[in-house]
């Protein structure tokens, strides 16, 4: 199945990429697995910014701290530290 991966703000700039589709084999997913799939597609160097501890992952616009499941068509976003106001 296919998910949509989004990159925001500094990550978008550093990866030079706003969004991409990604094939995942399993509905079960976690951060490490997801990063491995992305590394396979984009290369180790390019995904380096995603490895920072302060980068959050949101699945369908909800922050996921541990493991998560995805379904085809889901939106998985990488979010650098936020600040509004």
């Amino acid at each position: 199945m296919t998910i949509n991966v989004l990159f925001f703000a500094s990550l978008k700039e550093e990866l030079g990429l706003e969004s991409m589709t990604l094939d995942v084999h399993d509905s079960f997913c976690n951060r490490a697995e997801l990063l491995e799939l992305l590394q396979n597609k984009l290369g180790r160097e390019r995904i380096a910014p995603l490895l920072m501890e302060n980068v959050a992952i949101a699945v369908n616009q909800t922050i996921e701290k541990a493991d998560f499941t995805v379904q085809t068509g889901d939106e998985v976003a990488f979010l650098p530290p936020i600040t509004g106001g």
Partner: protein
Amino acid sequence: MVDEIRIQPEDFSYADEYARCLQAAGPECGAVASFVGLVRSSVGDSDVVGLQLEHYPGMTEQSIAKILAAARKRWDLQHVIVVHRVGELKPNAQIVLVVVASSHRPDAFAACEYVMDYLKTEAVFWKKELRNDGDAWIKSTGDDFARRDSWVDEPS
């Protein structure tokens, strides 16, 4: 009782939002506290050329709605309006507006400040400062987090 949350590239009119807030609050409104944040023209020794604001449509609105729901649990509020601009803003431009109407002054003040403190740390926005000495993505500061956390132990 439905609060207003708007994310927009366009500028906002303080007067219009204030009038709308009064209208929605009704005849028992006794207090309106407001806050506007603006782009400063310098930071330390650097000149600021602009501010670039990005958001995550849908998730950003949700993150603000959560803040307002929490504020409504703590205080007796009649109406709340949050307008937050995105896109590229020039120095002195308005960035954010929070207007809070309540019967009572303490509630209006506390909720307005609470919403701003949580917008700084919990709302899904990214800000890049465009400066004469280089651009920089802004992070919440230790002080921002301290201000947010100061609400946790306080009696409501």
